[in-house]
């Protein structure tokens, strides 16, 4: 997203401080993405719908408090959505669910020597379950939501270098344990 586009979106958000209809433009644009983002962390459509609606309600109620920080407005929605999901799991006191598309997963990883191996994939998933939640969150944002590091930093309330570090650490763990190649941005 270019700086101009980011600015334009911010202007729309600024307008919605006085005109609720203006917020509808952002709602229409991002509802789908935020819904998928939450669904990847709940695997439950009804729950996702509730949390998604709550996310946009919080955003609309707090439009006046939003400060421009050079990241797309969507990063703010992701941040609220992530907080709502975490609040839900804290209340339930249960393990967080990550429901990831297998197809995308296959696209991302490539075994170094062999072809796609179902058994090793299951082992990889089992191993990932024990990764710290914040590492999986970073991986999800980077590889499933396609977020830039500055956006990830904003969403997870950390520094950009911290977000990079956490991503590379998580990737290193997977690479060394499973001799994987992770493909993204057209590179390996």
């Amino acid at each position, binding site marked *: 997203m270019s700086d101009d586009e980011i600015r334009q979106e911010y202007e729309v958000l600024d307008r919605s401080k006085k005109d609720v209809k203006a917020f509808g433009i952002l709602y229409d644009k991002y509802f*789908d993405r935020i819904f998928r983002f939450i669904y990847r962390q709940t695997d439950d459509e009804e729950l996702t719908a509730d949390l998604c*609606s709550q996310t*946009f309600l919080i955003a609309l*109620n707090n439009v006046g408090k939003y400060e421009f920080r050079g990241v797309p407005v969507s990063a703010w929605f992701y941040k609220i959505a992530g907080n709502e999901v975490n609040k839900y799991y804290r209340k339930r006191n249960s393990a967080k*669910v990550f429901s990831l598309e297998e*197809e995308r997963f296959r696209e991302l990883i490539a075994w170094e020597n062999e072809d796609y191996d179902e058994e090793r994939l299951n082992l990889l998933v089992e191993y*990932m*379950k024990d*990764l710290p939640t914040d590492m*999986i969150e970073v991986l999800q944002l980077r590889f499933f939501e396609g977020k830039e590091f500055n956006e990830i930093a904003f969403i997870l309330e950390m520094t950009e270098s911290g977000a990079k570090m956490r991503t590379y650490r998580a990737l290193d763990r997977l690479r060394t344990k499973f001799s994987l190649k992770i493909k993204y941005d057209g590179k390996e």
Partner: protein
Amino acid sequence: MGKNEIKLRRRHLNPADILRYHDYPALVKRHERSRRLKRVVRFFTFSLIVTIIVLLLLMIISYLWFGVKEKSGQIKEKQNAITLSIRR
């Protein structure tokens, strides 16, 4: 069991499925309701604070008022005692 549960799913979310939950007018209604509620809560909080301040002021004024009265009474009593002793 691990810290997290990771599921790999084959099913993709259909845009039509998501569209079922897309309802901006309902969101605006909820927003208006929460704004009204916020206004009511703010009004009550403000009234409560004002009441507490007024009560505190009244307590301080009455304390000062009775304190002054009591003191002036004591002074009068003293003055009376002095005049009595002088007459004797």
